């Protein structure tokens, strides 16, 4: 299946490491965007070590004072319109973790 999950908190949802999909996307929204923008004790978030395509919502980065220039290169920044395209074109099923 083509599965995209939304990570909306700044901790790693326990179920994340158990999920498998033919195409797997992790969409960082709300407080999930800190995973893309911050290091903790110099280490990138463990969420970013998952085998997935990563997206972060630009509106939620900006709201929190997080600069798009500073985010992890693995992560593609998209806005709400980009998210709509992702939902209809790239993935089929979704989980809001």
């Amino acid at each position, binding site marked *: 299946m083509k599965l995209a999950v939304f990570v909306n908190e700044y901790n790693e949802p326990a179920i994340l490491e158990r999920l498998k999909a033919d195409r797997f996307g992790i969409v960082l929204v709300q407080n999930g965007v800190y995973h893309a923008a911050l290091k903790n004790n110099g280490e990138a978030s463990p969420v970013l070590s998952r085998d997935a395509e990563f997206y972060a919502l630009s509106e939620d980065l900006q709201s929190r004072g997080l600069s798009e220039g500073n985010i992890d290169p693995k992560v593609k920044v998209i806005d709400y*319109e980009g998210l709509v395209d992702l939902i*209809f074109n790239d993935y089929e099923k979704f989980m809001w973790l």
Partner: protein
Amino acid sequence: MGKLTIGCFSSLVGSMSLDFAVKLSEAAVKKGHEVDLWLSGNGVMLGKTGQSKFRDYSYLAGPVEELLKTGKFKVTNCEACAKARGIDKSDTMEGFGIHSMDWYLASAFSADRVIHIGGE
């Protein structure tokens, strides 16, 4: 063009999830899609009449009214969730549907995509 069903169970101000659901609806409608928004749990507070527009609190009544005008957006409250909270039809903004929970499943049945925002 497709149909997106969003279920949102989080509350008006207590979480930004309703803000997310409304903004995603706006973007989807703008791109020509059809959106059903199902509100359950504290999410039913989105339709409460008489909300005040304070800058310290999310005010979504305005954007929802605009969305309803497009004809491509439906929003429906979970009847039991609303009644439990003392929010009956007279407390609910015009244009909101009120249905039992099976309505959400029926909407999801005919949707191309479903995004269910379940947590608080």
